[in-house]
């Protein structure tokens, strides 16, 4: 049970290998949705339930839905899955093998990699998990977007507004 966050992060990487080995986009989108759900689980296990909900609602529920029906529009008659093409299958197996070797290498002691000292599993124990926290960090951080980060909010809102016009004019070939 202590290792559940690490197992989730390993499955996250396996999901990324799944769509990075380029099957047909239908299966790639499905793999990205699975990775998004696991990423939400990783973020929520560190105490960030608001940010996990943002991943599900905004990322999976907004952006992936748009990708989903764009894929449905530009798809082919016989979509190729991971098992139907030897190129996709071999890329997936090479990535999986790399991940397994990396996990085995990690658990064989303490290592130093590019200046960071990776040692032990102390990041997996979330302190204060059983009780209530007095400061919900991610809620108050998200709320400070409206008070301290007002300029961020103004620029992000303006950018979303302009990008609607950009998308409309690009689709009409008026670039």
């Amino acid at each position, binding site marked *: 049970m202590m290792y559940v966050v690490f197992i989730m992060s390993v499955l996250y990487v396996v999901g990324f290998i799944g769509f990075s080995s380029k099957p047909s986009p239908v299966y790639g989108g499905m793999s990205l949705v699975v990775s998004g759900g696991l990423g939400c689980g990783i973020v929520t296990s*560190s105490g960030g339930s608001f940010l996990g909900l943002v991943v599900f609602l905004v990322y999976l529920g907004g952006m992936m839905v748009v*990708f989903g029906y764009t894929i449905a529009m530009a798809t082919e008659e016989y979509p190729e899955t991971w098992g139907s093409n030897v190129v996709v299958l071999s890329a997936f197996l090479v990535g999986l093998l790399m991940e397994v070797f990396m996990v085995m290498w990690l658990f064989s002691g303490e290592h130093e990699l590019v200046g960071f000292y990776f040692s032990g599993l102390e990041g997996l124990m979330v302190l204060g998990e059983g009780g209530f926290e007095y400061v919900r960090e991610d809620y108050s*951080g998200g709320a400070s977007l409206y008070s301290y980060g007002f300029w961020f909010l103004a620029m992000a809102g303006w950018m979303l507004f302009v990008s609607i016009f950009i998308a409309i004019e690009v689709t009409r070939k008026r670039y």
Partner: protein
Amino acid sequence: MPYIYINIILAFVISLIGTLIYRSHLISSLLCLEGMILSLFTLNALLSLNINFTLSTIVPLILLVFAACEAAVGLALLIIISNTYGLDYVQNLNLLQC
């Protein structure tokens, strides 16, 4: 440094390689771009929560807003390509215009 960060940075590198290598569809590369942004979001959120620096939880939210705009423009370009050529195959793109 916890072990989870290696996996998430590795996920970013894997989807970066997936963005740079083309197979038949153009939308597969756009999906790998979305995967890069998801891994950056997860990394930012985990770092903000582990350092207990509350104000920097704004950064993943702003990153997600920029990612939405970028996905919209990318999909609009894909739509014109799909309207001109019928499918979004990379081998069709030999005219240097959409």
